[in-house]
């Protein structure tokens, strides 16, 4: 060994380093934890409390804190050893169970000789452990991320792995019956038991059997919510009532691979967190009512958007949607589900769709198409899974997905060109090629690109000097998306017209085989294609309105930046970044994600630079130009605001309303979609107001020194969209 070299496995990197422990280091060695005398003396076989009343008070205090600790663990993103496993009764029970695992609870019952402990408290403990087991199952599915979303470190203890839910149910039911029959003042404890009794039922929401096709039983969630609402009136019991019953001691007594941590106390909000958990689980279960692929897509897009959902609901959603039996919600095969997405957007009524219907299953066309559907499924499911991630991972997920969408687009375009060579072709009004599959992939890719860019504003990833390039790029992407949607809309309108025209042709044709053939085709199209095409027309119209609004909002931000730049109040160059790097490198690093995307091509650095120059206002007639620029922005904003008003109206009225020109697909996420678009409406107002403010402050005289009087700050107006922070002016102090 060379002097001063360190001993480590070649695969060890910094991650292992930062997770390494150190003996005799107070911050890193949990064997050095100092326990209080009460903690050391605590004995799980003693029925604490002198009188029965005191025993009830003690057991209630432990049960309340244990119940709260589950939400401290999950909603507070804490570890198991500092929450649930810090309960001495939990530690005692699962240690004994780990030593002697069985299908019953014989090895983990408390044995104090008092039924409040041996029956009731045991129920609370095993109910809690059973729920931990359920959460561990979700965790192992790998949907959410270790540590940042969920810590399932059970310290090697067996969380009742072999005990069936029926055994736990029966035990808990006996405890509830005992309390109701023999303890008059145990209302709070009964509620806690009932809450936990409903909590164990979560396991049954995990789809695993054929009968899971049945609508989920929501009653346990509703009952749990009711219990939690009632328990909210009780303040957390003072810790001294059950001193020693909660302790960090498990970290000292068992093998611990983590640094010692204090146990986490209740913040008092835990029962509210239970209510939120139930609300979020109910929302996830609602996806089962989706009537179409576009409704499922919109559900996923909105359900976790305006508020990050409870981690259990987020982990549960993809598993509930995309099941182990290779179905979506037990209703569709993966391939059929993907095909539904295409039919709901651009494939319906096309020659390709009709050829696919007519071709035999073993034909080259169907086989090749199915191969592509498998590819689509892989990426589409990644998209779905991403919608359930925490707010930061959500953006990162897109970073990876964009390459996949881009690669799929290139492949599927080649496939469609091959089909065209074989005569399977769909044309737009101007006879140009439509390519329904490529169009959908391009739509999904552009949506993901735009969301990736705008999410960066919400996460505060961009500094104000970057606002121009990011909003200009968002505007550029929105333009491409707008074109894609307009093409699609035009194509759908053409199809609808051509079907209706069949009827006119029929009237002109003489009776005969030709007429009968056309009549059959017309009837088939009216029955099968027209309803879907009409729905698609409305969905694409809605998508177009939304896209136009995003485009105008982005453009307005570009204008406002340019006005500020023209007045010398902001620059699009990084401050002081020239010693080790260059503005061009920094720009290229920022746009690295997009540099490899084939279509739309990333404009060069020079194009970004030039476009800012184009927007910049200069003398002569600065004031007049400024007024014109801001007036233009205002009128664009007002026009786009009307589109969002239409969308909000459609959300309120509901998608089933036949008179509506749009279909938002948000029936199952009305509240969330409404919040999202209402925030956009407030952003329109905020940008109009900001434009007026800029004009008032900078428009009257351009004396060359606005920087002496004002500075730029990032403002996030109340209730406005987090995707569009506003660059506002504040007076210098």
């Amino acid at each position, binding site marked *: 060994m060379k002097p001063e070299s360190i001993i480590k496995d070649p695969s060890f990197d910094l991650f292992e*380093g930062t997770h390494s422990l150190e003996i005799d*280091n107070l911050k890193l060695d949990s064997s050095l934890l100092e326990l209080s005398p009460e903690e050391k003396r605590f004995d799980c076989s003693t029925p604490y409390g002198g009188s029965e009343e005191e025993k009830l008070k003690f057991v209630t205090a432990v049960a309340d804190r244990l119940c709260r600790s589950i939400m401290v663990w999950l909603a507070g993103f804490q570890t198991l050893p500092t929450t649930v496993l810090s309960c001495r009764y939990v530690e005692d029970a699962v240690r004994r169970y780990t030593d002697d695992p069985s299908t019953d609870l014989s090895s983990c019952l408390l044995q104090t000789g008092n039924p409040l402990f041996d029956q009731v408290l045991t129920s609370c403990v095993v109910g809690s452990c059973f729920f931990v087991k359920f959460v561990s199952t979700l965790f192992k599915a790998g949907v959410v991320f270790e540590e*940042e979303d969920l810590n399932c470190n059970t310290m090697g203890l067996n969380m009742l792995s072999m005990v069936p839910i029926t055994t736990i149910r029966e035990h808990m039911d006996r405890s509830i019956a005992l309390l109701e029959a023999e303890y008059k003042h145990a209302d709070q404890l009964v509620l806690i038991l009932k809450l936990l009794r409903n909590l164990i039922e979560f396991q049954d929401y995990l789809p695993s059997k054929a009968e899971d096709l049945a609508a989920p039983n929501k009653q346990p969630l509703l009952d749990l919510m009711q219990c939690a609402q009632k328990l909210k009136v009780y303040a957390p019991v003072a810790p001294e009532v059950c001193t020693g019953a909660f302790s960090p001691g498990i970290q000292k007594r068992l093998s611990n691979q983590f*640094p010692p941590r204090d146990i986490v106390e209740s913040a008092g909000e835990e029962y509210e967190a239970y209510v939120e958990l139930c609300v979020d689980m109910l929302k996830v279960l609602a996806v089962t009512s989706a009537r179409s692929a576009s409704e499922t897509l919109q559900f996923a897009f909105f359900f976790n958007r305006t508020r990050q959902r409870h981690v259990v609901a987020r982990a549960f959603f993809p598993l509930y949607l995309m099941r182990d039996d290779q179905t979506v919600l037990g209703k569709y095969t993966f391939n059929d589900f993907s095909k539904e997405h295409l039919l709901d957007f651009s494939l319906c009524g096309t020659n390709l769709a009709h050829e696919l219907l007519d071709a035999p299953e073993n034909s080259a066309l169907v086989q090749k198409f199915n191969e592509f559907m498998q590819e689509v499924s892989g990426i589409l499911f990644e998209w779905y899974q991403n919608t359930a991630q925490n707010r*930061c991972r959500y953006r990162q997920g897109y970073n990876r997905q964009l390459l996949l969408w881009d690669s799929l687009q290139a492949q599927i375009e080649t496939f469609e060109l091959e089909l065209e060579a074989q005569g399977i072709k769909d044309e737009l009004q101007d006879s140009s090629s439509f390519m329904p599959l490529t169009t959908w992939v391009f739509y999904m890719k552009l949506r993901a690109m735009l969301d990736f860019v705008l999410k960066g504003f919400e996460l505060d990833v961009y500094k104000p000097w970057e606002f121009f390039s990011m909003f200009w790029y968002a505007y550029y992407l929105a333009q491409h998306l707008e074109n894609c949607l307009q093409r699609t809309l035009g194509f759908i309108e053409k199809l609808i017209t051509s079907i209706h025209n069949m009827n006119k042709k029929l009237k002109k044709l003489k009776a005969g085989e030709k007429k009968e053939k056309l009549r059959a085709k017309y009837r088939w199209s009216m029955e099968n294609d027209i309803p879907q095409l009409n729905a698609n027309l409305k969905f694409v119209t809605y998508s177009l309105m939304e896209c136009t609004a995003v485009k105008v909002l982005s453009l307005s931000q570009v204008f406002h930046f340019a006005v500020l730049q023209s007045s010398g109040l902001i620059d699009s160059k990084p401050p002081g970044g020239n010693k080790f790097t260059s503005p061009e490198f*920094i720009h290229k690093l920022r746009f690295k994600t997009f540099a490899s995307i084939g279509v739309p091509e990333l404009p060069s650095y020079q194009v970004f630079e030039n476009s800012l120059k184009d927007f910049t206002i200069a003398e002569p007639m600065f004031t007049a130009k400024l007024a014109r620029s801001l007036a233009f922005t205002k009128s664009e904003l007002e026009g786009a605001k009307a589109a969002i008003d239409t969308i909000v109206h459609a959300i309120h009225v509901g998608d089933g309303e036949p008179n509506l020109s749009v279909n938002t697909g948000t029936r199952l996420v009305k509240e969330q979609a409404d919040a999202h678009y209402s925030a956009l409406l407030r952003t329109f107002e905020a940008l109009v107001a900001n434009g007026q403010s800029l004009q008032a402050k900078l428009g009257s005289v351009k004396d060359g020194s606005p920087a002496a009087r004002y500075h730029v700050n990032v403002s996030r107006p109340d209730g406005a969209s987090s995707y569009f922070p506003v660059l506002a002016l504040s007076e210098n102090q």
Partner: protein
Amino acid sequence: MGIRYQPLNISNANELKHIQRLIDADLSEPYSIYVYRYFLNQWPELCFLAFSNDTENPVGCVVCKYETHRGARLRGYIGMLAVDQKYRRRGIAKKLVEQAIQKMQEIGCDEIMLETEVENTTALQLYEGMGFIRLKRMFRYYLNQGDAFKLILPLTERSCTRTTFLLQPETAFA
């Protein structure tokens, strides 16, 4: 009061203790001796100390490393930076970071990376003033529950190219 900057003397055990003292006083993450040894023994040339004329012991330090990132580019990493409370607001941290970046640039790093807490505006101001940009935000990255930003300073064109494309045979990192 003059401040001098010098690289770590790995043979001087006292210097390691002082680095631990400076870092432990400030950072929310508890680091084991392994972490310090991991950095200092492998990349001693990327640890710089700041000494003040009025005291014998170092008053600031920066600890870095560099490695090939995903087989595609050479990435420098600023692992720890700390300045004694009494010696702050004198540009010591900036100077230490500049020395480290300069060294990593000489070594041939394509980029420098680090993480910092979203709430640590002082650190963000320091690094962003040097050209670092926020590449991504990481949810609950630190033990104190706070989010972090991953910051990168691009030094060469390779930093601006996706790894997938750098790994293609004709461009793979030698």
